[in-house]
């Protein structure tokens, strides 16, 4: 028997598979498809202080081996997430969930993180400083080490649970970003968020996405993700959650060999609602194939 367990910042996961924020709603919808308790955990839909509709449609574009989205953090707002979504989730998920938080100012990040930190269901808080689809702050926090440091430091002041900062790949130097949030007290980092991409409709000669650009994800971006996870894992001491185009159990292993402690599955959940389940079920076979007894042996420093 192979051992798929990993430890993510003090909580043992049955496996390293974590559906990524924005591709798994608040979980209960996928619970109609399969028992989501089989997951390591999942990161819920990026939550902001106020309810948001997000960007105008169309906000989806097809790409070779990937897709662009410009949803723009549509969510019901933190109050409603706590009052309605988490109770619904509780009925179908008995593990700790990862709370994903978006924001437009340091104060907003602080307020939302502080509220979610008090929720017993929440095991980790993933602070998204890298959403490419919101203006007025979200992205600049993700591309400027100083801003990233600030938001991390302030969030840490008002929280007790592990803070994982989600990094943008749209930067010259991913290592300096990771080090900045590590220095500010981040307990972990997750990367990569989407690459900024664009498509044009040849018939209308206009961008496919109403918002012109959006976040590009899917297997196409996997080599960039592996590279950045490798760079960051070799530069920081905190755990790295790897993501970006993972579609198979082989990809999971490759991402962990690059230095990830756990992985998030994003776009693949959207083209196959059973993707995360299938990957988990296929992991033991792939581990055996590559003579891996325990996933922990792949993790740097363990």
């Amino acid at each position, binding site marked *: 028997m192979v051992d798929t367990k990993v430890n993510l910042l003090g909580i043992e996961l049955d496996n390293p598979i974590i559906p990524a924020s*924005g591709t798994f709603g608040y979980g209960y919808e996928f619970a109609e498809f399969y028992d989501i308790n089989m997951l390591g955990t999942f990161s819920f839909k990026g939550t902001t202080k106020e309810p948001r509709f*997000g960007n105008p*449609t169309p*906000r989806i574009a*097809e790409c070779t081996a990937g897709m662009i*989205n410009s949803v723009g953090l549509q969510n019901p707002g933190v109050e409603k997430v706590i009052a309605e979504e988490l109770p619904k989730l509780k009925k179908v998920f008995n593990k700790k969930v990862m709370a994903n938080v978006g924001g437009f100012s340091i104060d907003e990040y602080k307020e939302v993180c502080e509220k979610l930190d008090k929720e017993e269901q929440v095991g980790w808080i993933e602070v998204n400083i890298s959403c490419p689809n919101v203006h007025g702050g979200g992205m600049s926090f993700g591309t400027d080490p100083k801003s990233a440091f600030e938001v991390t430091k302030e969030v840490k002041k008002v929280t007790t649970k592990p803070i994982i900062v989600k990094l943008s790949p749209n930067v010259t130097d991913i290592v300096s970003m990771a080090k900045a949030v590590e220095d500010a007290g981040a307990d972990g980092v997750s990367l990569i968020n989407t690459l900024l991409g664009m498509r044009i409709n040849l018939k209308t000669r206009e961008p496919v996405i109403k918002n012109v650009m959006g976040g590009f994800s899917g297997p196409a971006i996997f080599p960039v993700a592996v590279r950045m996870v490798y760079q960051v894992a070799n530069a920081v001491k905190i755990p790295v959650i790897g993501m970006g185009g993972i579609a198979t159990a082989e990809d999971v292993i490759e991402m962990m060999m690059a230095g990830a402690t756990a992985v998030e599955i994003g776009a693949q959940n*959207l*083209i196959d609602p059973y993707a995360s389940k299938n990957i988990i079920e296929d992991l033991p076979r792939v581990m055996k194939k590559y003579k891996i007894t325990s996933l922990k042996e792949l993790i740097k420093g363990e």
Partner: protein
Amino acid sequence: MKQVFLKITKNEHLTKDVLKMVLKGDVSDIKAGQFVNIKIEGEYLRRPISVCDLGKNTLTLIYKVVGKGTEIMANMKKGEVLDVLTGLGNGYDLSCAGERPLLVGGGVGVPPLYLLAKELKKQGKDITVTLGFNTKDEIFYEKEFSKLGKVFVTTVDGSYGIKGFVTNALENVDATYFYSCGPEPMLKALSNATKISGELSFEERMGCGFGACMGCSCKTLTGNKRICKEGPVMKKEEIIW
């Protein structure tokens, strides 16, 4: 929602750009007005196609070649097996039909009305169908609908039936409720032209098709809705034009 593997038993042109595909397999839990989401080899996103007809083990889709995904579909052969998510979307609400429902379809908005018409017919309703096309060569399924109710066809260029838009065929129709599907300008014109209540089926570029990605959201008077989950069918009264 259900993931099923369906075998193509027919895939043939109805017009130059419009094809009819018949699939065989587990088609339980599919309702009129819903859509299926098809995995297409070589494309990343699935392609949502509205349900046109349903047999005991067969599903009929009618689709227009509009891009790379539907081009690939058009070249699929009998015997190929497709990975299909079924039972997606809310579907039409048959309980509102009244005695004399009006069905209004434009172009590739016509197919989803067919299963609806069959089911309303089963309930003994007195059905009127108005089908709008650009030109004579693009017309399909007139005969099929004729077996289920009174059919008016409009063409924009007047090459067949009533010249103009579907709304030009509504004047003498005395209906209790309408069901519609078609391009947004048609839906809006129809909504404005009718005093009765009704339902309209919308299109939007979708990510997942099952409510996860929020790609296809729209604002309505009754809150934000996902076209793929709380839609594609909306009540006339809740739509913000």
